C-alpha cells in the first residue's frame, strides 16, 4: 500500500476517532456497539438455520433439498442483502470527489472506500455470519478439501454482491438525477396506475402466473441477479461432489464482479469529475416553480419542504424501489398464500407496503434537519415558530409517503383481485395512523441528535448511528403496536376491526403528536446553539 493510500486510511481512522470522542460521540460509539451486539445473535440464529439446511443438502447431494439450499438460499440472501444495502443500510463511504485532488489512483480510493465502509457496518457482520453458517454446515456434513472451493465461492458471492450494490447505487444516482428520466418514469407510473385500474375493473389478466405464461422469458430474469445465479450454479455442483464443474461458474462470477466493480468505479468517477449539473429547478421559465394553493405562514415552509423532498434522490429511489419490492412480493409470495388462510392474511402485503413506505424514508423523519445546511440558519433568523418548522416537515413527508404507498400498492392490486373495502380502508388507516407516532418520535430524535447529510443516497451517512438505533426501536415499537389489531382480527375473525383499530390508534397518535409538537418546537429553539454548527456542516 502506498504512503498516500495509507494516509487516506489514517485520515478515515482519525476522523472516525474524532467523531467518537467529539460532541455526542460517546452516544454514537455506544450505538454502534449496540448495533453490532444486535446483529451478532440475530446473525447467529439465522446462520444456524442455514447451516442445518446446508448440512441436509450436502448429505443429499442432489434433489429438492439441494435446489432449496443452493437456489432459494442464495437468491434470498442476495435479494435481502441488496434491498437492505439500497434502502435502510446507510454505511459511510469515501467521497471520491474530495480525494481527486491528491496524487493517488482514484480506483484505489474507491476500493478503500468500499472496504472501509464495510468494516464498520454491523449489517455486513450479519451477512458474514450467515455465510459462515453455510460453510460450517457443509464442513460438518462432508469434511474435505472441497470446502476451500466452497469458501472461495462464498467470498466471491460476498464480493459480487457488494460490487453489484455499488453499481446499482451509482447507476441509480445517475439515472434518477436526470430530469428526462424522472419525467418519463412519472408518465410510466401514471400509465401503470391507469392500466392497473382498467385491469382490475375489467377482469383482464389478474395474476402474475398468467403474465408469466404470456412471457416465459421472465425466467431469464434470474441472471439480472447474477451474484446469486453464479453462486447457486457453482454450489449445486459442489454439493453434488463435482468440484471441477464448479470452477467455470466461479470464474464467471469473478469476471462479472470485476466488470461490475470497474463499471461502478467508472460511473462514480465520471460523476465526481462532472461537478454540478447546473440543472434548472424546472416548472417555470423563471424558476419560481410550482406553488402550493395554501396561504398562511406555514405555506412557504411546506412548499420548501415539498420541493426539497421531491428533489432528494432517496425520495426518487423510494418511488422506484418500493413498487419493485411490492411487485416481487406480489409475484413470488402472494400466490403461495392458500385461500383458506383468510382475507386478513391475504391483505398483509398491502398493509406491509403501507408500513414500509414510512420505514423506507426513515432518514427524513430521524434526521429531519440534516439537509438544511446553511438554510438552517434561516429557520432561526426568520420569525418562525419551531413547532411550525417541524409540522411542515412532517406534513410534507406524510404526502411523500402517501405517494410512495400508492405506487407500491399498484403491483399488489394488479396481481390479485381488488381487495375488499375494509382492506383498502385498513391500509389507508394504517398508513395515516403510524405517521403521527413515527413523526413525533422522529422530531425528538432529529432535534436532539442531528447530523449534516449530503444530498445523495450512496455516500455519507444520512442518519447518525445513535439515531439509527433509536429508529430501530421506534419502528419496532410502532409496528409491534399496530400489529396487535391484526392478531385480534385473526383471532375474532373480524376483519373490520383493522380499519377501526388503526383509525383509533391514529387518532390517539394525532393527539399525542399535537401535545408533543409545541414542546419539540421549544426544544428546537433552545438547542439552536448546538444544532446549527452540526446541521450547517461546520462540524461535518
Amino acid at each position, binding site marked *: 500500500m502506498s504512503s498516500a493510500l495509507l494516509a487516506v486510511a489514517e485520515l478515515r481512522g482519525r476522523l472516525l476517532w474524532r467523531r467518537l470522542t467529539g460532541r455526542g460521540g460517546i452516544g454514537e460509539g455506544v450505538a454502534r456497539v449496540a448495533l453490532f451486539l444486535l446483529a451478532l445473535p440475530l446473525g447467529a440464529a439465522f446462520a444456524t438455520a442455514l447451516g442445518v439446511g446446508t448440512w441436509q443438502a450436502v448429505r443429499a447431494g442432489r434433489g429438492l433439498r439441494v435446489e432449496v439450499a443452493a437456489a432459494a438460499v442464495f437468491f434470498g440472501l442476495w435479494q435481502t442483502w441488496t434491498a437492505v444495502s439500497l434502502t435502510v443500510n446507510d454505511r459511510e463511504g469515501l467521497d471520491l470527489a474530495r480525494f481527486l485532488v491528491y496524487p493517488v489512483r482514484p480506483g484505489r480510493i474507491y476500493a478503500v472506500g468500499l472496504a472501509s465502509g464495510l468494516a464498520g457496518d454491523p449489517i455486513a457482520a450479519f451477512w458474514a455470519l450467515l455465510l459462515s453458517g453455510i460453510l460450517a454446515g457443509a464442513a460438518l456434513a462432508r469434511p474435505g478439501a472441497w470446502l476451500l472451493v466452497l469458501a472461495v465461492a462464498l467470498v466471491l458471492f460476498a464480493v459480487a454482491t457488494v460490487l453489484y450494490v455499488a453499481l446499482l447505487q451509482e447507476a441509480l444516482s445517475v439515472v434518477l438525477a436526470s430530469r428526462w428520466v424522472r419525467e418519463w418514469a412519472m408518465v410510466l407510473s401514471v400509465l401503470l396506475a391507469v392500466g392497473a385500474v382498467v385491469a382490475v375493473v375489467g377482469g383482464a389478466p389478474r395474476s402474475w402466473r398468467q403474465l408469466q405464461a404470456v412471457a416465459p422469458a421472465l425466467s431469464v430474469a434470474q441472471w439480472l441477479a447474477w451474484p446469486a445465479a453464479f453462486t447457486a450454479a457453482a454450489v449445486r455442483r459442489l454439493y453434488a461432489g463435482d468440484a471441477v464443474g464448479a470452477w467455470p461458474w466461479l470464474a464467471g462470477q469473478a469476471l462479472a464482479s470485476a466488470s461490475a466493480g470497474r463499471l461502478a468505479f467508472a460511473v462514480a468517477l465520471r460523476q465526481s469529475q462532472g461537478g454540478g449539473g447546473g440543472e434548472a429547478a424546472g416548472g417555470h421559465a423563471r424558476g*419560481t416553480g410550482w406553488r402550493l394553493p395554501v396561504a398562511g405562514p406555514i405555506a412557504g415552509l411546506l412548499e420548501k419542504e415539498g420541493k426539497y423532498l421531491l428533489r432528494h434522490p432517496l425520495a426518487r429511489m423510494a418511488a422506484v424501489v418500493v413498487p419493485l419490492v411490492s411487485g416481487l412480493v406480489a409475484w413470488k409470495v402472494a400466490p403461495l398464500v392458500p385461500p383458506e388462510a383468510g382475507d386478513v392474511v391475504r391483505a398483509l402485503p398491502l398493509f406491509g407496503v403501507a408500513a414500509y413506505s414510512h420505514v423506507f424514508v426513515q432518514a427524513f423523519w430521524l434526521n429531519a434537519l440534516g439537509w438544511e445546511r446553511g438554510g438552517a440558519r434561516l429557520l432561526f*433568523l426568520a420569525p418562525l415558530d419551531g413547532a411550525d418548522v417541524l409540522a411542515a416537515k412532517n406534513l410534507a413527508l406524510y404526502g411523500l409517503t402517501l405517494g410512495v404507498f400508492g405506487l407500491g400498492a399498484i403491483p399488489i392490486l394488479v396481481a390479485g383481485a381488488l381487495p375488499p373495502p375494509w382492506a383498502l380502508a385498513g391500509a389507508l388507516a394504517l398508513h395515516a395512523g403510524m405517521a403521527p407516532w413515527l413523526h413525533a418520535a422522529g422530531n425528538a430524535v432529529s432535534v436532539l441528535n442531528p447530523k449534516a447529510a449530503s444530498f445523495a443516497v450512496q455516500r455519507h451517512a444520512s442518519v447518525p448511528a445513535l439515531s439509527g438505533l433509536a429508529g430501530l426501536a421506534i419502528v419496532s415499537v410502532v409496528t409491534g403496536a399496530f400489529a396487535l389489531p391484526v392478531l385480534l382480527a385473526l383471532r375474532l375473525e373480524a376483519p373490520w376491526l383493522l380499519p377501526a383499530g388503526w383509525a383509533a390508534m391514529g387518532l390517539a397518535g394525532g393527539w399525542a403528536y399535537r401535545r408533543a409538537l409545541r414542546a419539540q418546537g421549544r426544544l428546537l429553539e433552545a438547542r439552536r446553539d448546538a444544532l446549527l454548527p452540526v446541521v450547517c456542516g461546520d462540524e461535518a
Partner: protein
Amino acid sequence: MLAIETSGLTRLFDGKAAVEALELRVPTGAFYGFLGPNGAGKSTTIKMLTGLLRPSAGSARVLGLDLARRALAVKARVGVVPDGLALFERLSGAEMLRIHGQLYGLDRATAGRRAAEMLEALELVADAGRLVQDYSHGMKKKLALGCALIHGPELLFLDEPFEGIDAVAVAGIRRMLQDLVARGALTVFLTSHVLEVVERIVSHVGIIHRGRLARQGTLEEVCAGGTLEEAFIHVAGEERAPPRGLSWLAGARPGPAAGGGGPEGER
C-alpha cells in the same frame, strides 16, 4: 433613537469569553461598521443580535424591543446576511427569494412580485431558474442580500458581505446599500475586513478586540484625524514580521520525488 443597544452582552464558549460585556450603541439610520481582527467576536456578536446564538449574560434591545422577550417581533423587522449565508441550496434563486419572503410573513403574490423585482436589481434574472447550489460565491452573496431585503427590513445585519466577491460586485452592493441608507429606509450593521471599502461607506464604527469593544463612535471620532486602517492597527496590534522558517520554499528546487525534498532531505 438607537437601533441597537446592548448592555453587558457576553458569550462564553467552554468558559472562555468570545464576547465580553459589550456596550454597543448603533443610532437609527446609521451605516455602522463593526470591525475587528479574526476571532475578535464580530460574528458571535451578530449571531447574538440576530437570535442565532443565546447570550451567556447581558441584554440587547433591537429597534427598541427587548431581544430576549420579543424575538419574533424583532426578527420580522430585521434582515440578515450571516457568515456562511442562510440559503436553501436546493431551491432555485427565484424560489429562494419568494419563499424567503413568505417565511417573513409576505403573502405569496407580494413575495413573488418582489422576488422578480429583486432578481432584476441583482442582475440574476438569467440565473433565476438555476439551483442555488450551482451559483458562484458572488452570486450567492448577492442572492443572500436580496433575501435579507425582500421583506423591507428596518435594520440590516451583514456579516462580511464583501468577502470572496469581485470588485464589480462589491461596487454594486456598496451602491445599493448606500442608496438605501441615504433614503433613510435602513440602518446597516456590517462587519468586514475590507477597510478601504468600509471607510468609504460607513458613518459609524465600532472596533472589537479579544471580545471587548475597544472603540466606538462616528467615523471621524474613531479615526481621530488618521485613516481607519491606522486606527484599526492601533487597536488590534502592530504589523507583524513575516514568519521564519519555510526554508524549502526559498528557491527553485526539484520536487520531493526527484530531489528527496521535505524536512528529511534537509538534514
